[in-house]
């Protein structure tokens, strides 16, 4: 645990000292602030527009940071050989991967927190109340971010950042389309249904972490479903990190 914490702390330093993070974060904060203007030109739906774009903005920009930083996290260590320094110390490869994951995840939590503060201030200013439902939605999207960090770390153990980014974006697209594709094939049936079912169970079902529409339209949110989604996300992360550890162990340094 001690080694994981030390590596996580070092990774967090790496994340918060990266100038690119501030460029993306600055752009994200500008986007969230711009929802004030976009809301004001929406003919009485200003709060809905602010919540819709605000939550989407927080999600998209945190995902960009997760993929951008995650895909180079281990690759950079192997390519620049900085991991020789770390792994020649009494540190196991599993501690290294888990430490890297937590370092980046905590970095992402901090950036999401900064974006969320601006968002909640705007919503409170326009609606006069604290957006509790928005908070649940943002918290759940953090689980999706954790999955993408794990996924990017796994890819970065064996592929270059550009290739890892492409794989991650493809999985993002597939993960959000699974429910739709599944319901289509369930109606048509046939042998292709089995292939779709295989894909459905292998790829992460990212719609489980998407509460944004329910929040915007004030629909009911089920506590049980949220708990199951969190569990699903945590298990998925653990599996991906185990694969990343296995992949790093197989690497000849």
């Amino acid at each position: 645990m001690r080694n994981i914490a030390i590596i996580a702390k070092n990774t967090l330093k790496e994340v918060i000292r990266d100038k690119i993070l501030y460029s993306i974060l600055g752009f994200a904060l500008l986007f969230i602030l711009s929802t004030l203007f976009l809301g004001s030109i929406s003919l009485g739906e200003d709060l809905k527009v602010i919540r819709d774009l605000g939550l989407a903005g927080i999600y998209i920009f945190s995902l960009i940071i997760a993929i951008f930083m995650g895909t180079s996290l281990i690759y950079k260590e192997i390519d620049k050989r900085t991991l020789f320094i770390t792994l020649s110390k009494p540190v196991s490869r599993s501690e290294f991967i888990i430490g890297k994951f937590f370092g980046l995840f905590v970095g992402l939590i901090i950036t999401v927190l900064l974006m969320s503060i601006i968002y909640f201030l705007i919503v409170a200013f326009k609606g006069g109340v604290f957006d509790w439902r928005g908070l649940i939605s943002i918290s759940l999207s953090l689980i999706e971010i954790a999955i993408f960090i794990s996924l990017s770390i796994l890819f970065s153990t064996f592929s270059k950042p550009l290739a890892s980014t492409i794989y991650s974006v493809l999985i993002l697209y597939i993960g959000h389309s699974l429910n739709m594709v599944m319901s289509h094939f369930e109606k048509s049936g046939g042998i292709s249904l089995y292939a779709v079912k295989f894909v459905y169970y292998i790829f992460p079902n990212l719609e489980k972490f998407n509460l944004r529409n329910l929040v915007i339209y004030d629909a009911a949110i089920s506590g049980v479903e949220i708990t199951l989604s969190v569990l699903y996300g945590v298990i998925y992360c653990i599996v991906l990190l185990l694969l990343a550890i296995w992949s790093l162990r197989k690497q000849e340094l």
Partner: protein
Amino acid sequence: MIRVEKISKSFYGQKIVSNLTLSIKKGEVFGFLGPNGAGKTTTIKMLVGLNLPDSGSILVDDNSPTQKNTRSKIGFMPENPYFYDHLTGIELLKFCNDLSVGKHKTDLKFLESTLKQVGLENAGRKMIREYSKGMKQRLGLAQAIIHDPDYIFLDEPLDGLDPIGRLEIKEIVKVLKGRGKTVFFNSHILSDVEEICDEIGIINNGRLMYMGEVDKFRGNKTLEEAFVEAIRKGEK
């Protein structure tokens, strides 16, 4: 003691190290020599537990270097060391010491004294990305000895250093030897090896050609002459 028994290692079907056996006594400075691509770096990586041999065994202090306990007794300086550019020299040393067993308290004075030992006392708060090659070599040595390991593995530690830097590093190696540490190092600079090593091992094309005392190997020639002759003879 470091015992290497018949280790072999291949990459992509090409044998890099073949049936290598070494035995290095505790408290000895051992120079591992060989031309480029002879298998020196591959061997040192296996000795510190970064890579596993395909066959054979390695024991450092009677234990495998892949065990965490063994690695707490090992200090390793890679060739042309790369560091985390986002850290300062002091921060890197703290990180390295924290990861090791932590025999020492990581207070600022202790970190600064280690930096002073390698001649970086004025660069501790500088970002590593601003370091010159020679400064990085020194920092590489500092991170290898920060936790006071018993076995120190140095891969080309004198590379990129000016004559003063080389002299200082050699002095440090002598001090480490005086404190009973075992030092294993790869080097191309044979005059330095001649000066500080008790024993040498010569490897070519992954095979050990000689292991023993420096004087016995060179006879009445310089180490460089004897080395070149041995390599050429081996290639015929």
